[in-house]
């Protein structure tokens, strides 16, 4: 039988390895979805994940036009695989005032998890990371702790534990 701690560790591993201090925006300036995606793509470029933030932002907008990734309860998980992404990455960003993200519940988005990857045809790790992120923020107390966290290290700890629960 697999021990609970081993299972928890396995569950967290994909997301854990992608959470980096360079991939964190403590407070987004933008209040609208399109501008927020530009800001996120620019942050990816600063973190060295892409050298073409404009094209990546366009792709993210196209993904949003397909259907919103604002899943409700203040959470959005924009995501895409792109030729111009060098490595899998998760960028965590917060907005105290909230972003109009066309979320499914119509509410503003306060926590954004941008998930990107190179364009592998089937990428189980990319899919697992998406699932890990959604699972990690399913509890309202976790979302509140993430919003209140003073720094990236605290955000990281909260996410790792929540994804492993």
């Amino acid at each position, binding site marked *: 039988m697999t021990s609970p701690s081993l299972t928890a560790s396995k569950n967290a591993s994909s997301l854990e390895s992608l959470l980096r201090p360079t991939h964190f925006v403590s407070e987004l300036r933008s209040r609208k979805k399109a501008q927020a995606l530009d800001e996120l793509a620019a942050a990816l470029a600063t973190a060295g994940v892409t050298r*073409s933030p404009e*094209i990546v932002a366009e792709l993210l907008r196209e993904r949003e036009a*397909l259907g*919103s990734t604002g*899943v409700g309860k203040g959470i959005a998980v924009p995501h895409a695989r792109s*030729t*111009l992404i060098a490595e899998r990455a998760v960028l965590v960003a917060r907005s105290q005032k909230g972003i109009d993200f066309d979320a499914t519940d119509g509410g503003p988005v306060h926590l954004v998890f941008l998930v990107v990857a190179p*364009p592998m*045809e089937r990428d189980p790790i990319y899919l697992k990371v998406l699932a890990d992120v959604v699972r990690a923020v399913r509890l309202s107390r976790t979302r509140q702790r993430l919003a209140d966290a003073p720094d990236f290290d605290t955000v990281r700890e909260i996410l790792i534990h929540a994804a492993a629960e």
Partner: protein
Amino acid sequence: MPPLNEQLDALVTLQDIDLMLRDSRDPEMATHETRLGFARENVKGLEQTRERLRRQIDEPLLRTYERMSQKIPRLVVPVEGRVCQGCKMSLPTSGVGRTTPGTTIENCENCGRILYRI
């Protein structure tokens, strides 16, 4: 028709949109995303974007893409530090300087992929 470097930008986006469309038509992928709460209702809009991008690309380049992308996954690849990101082989230095990036279509001599210089 836009300059070649703009056509290559459109081609890269087209390749990524094609992957997104394949995901949308893949029942397993679509189910996975729907279960996570992500909406995917406007595939028609994505198809219209694809058409718009196609119109920005010269016919011979578009034909090459549509023919070769059936055989070679990730046909258009970036070049990083003279390395083709498709096959990871170094591009021969003899080719460097022979053409100005963005003025001719360059293919990797090893794998044949279309090279995209950022």
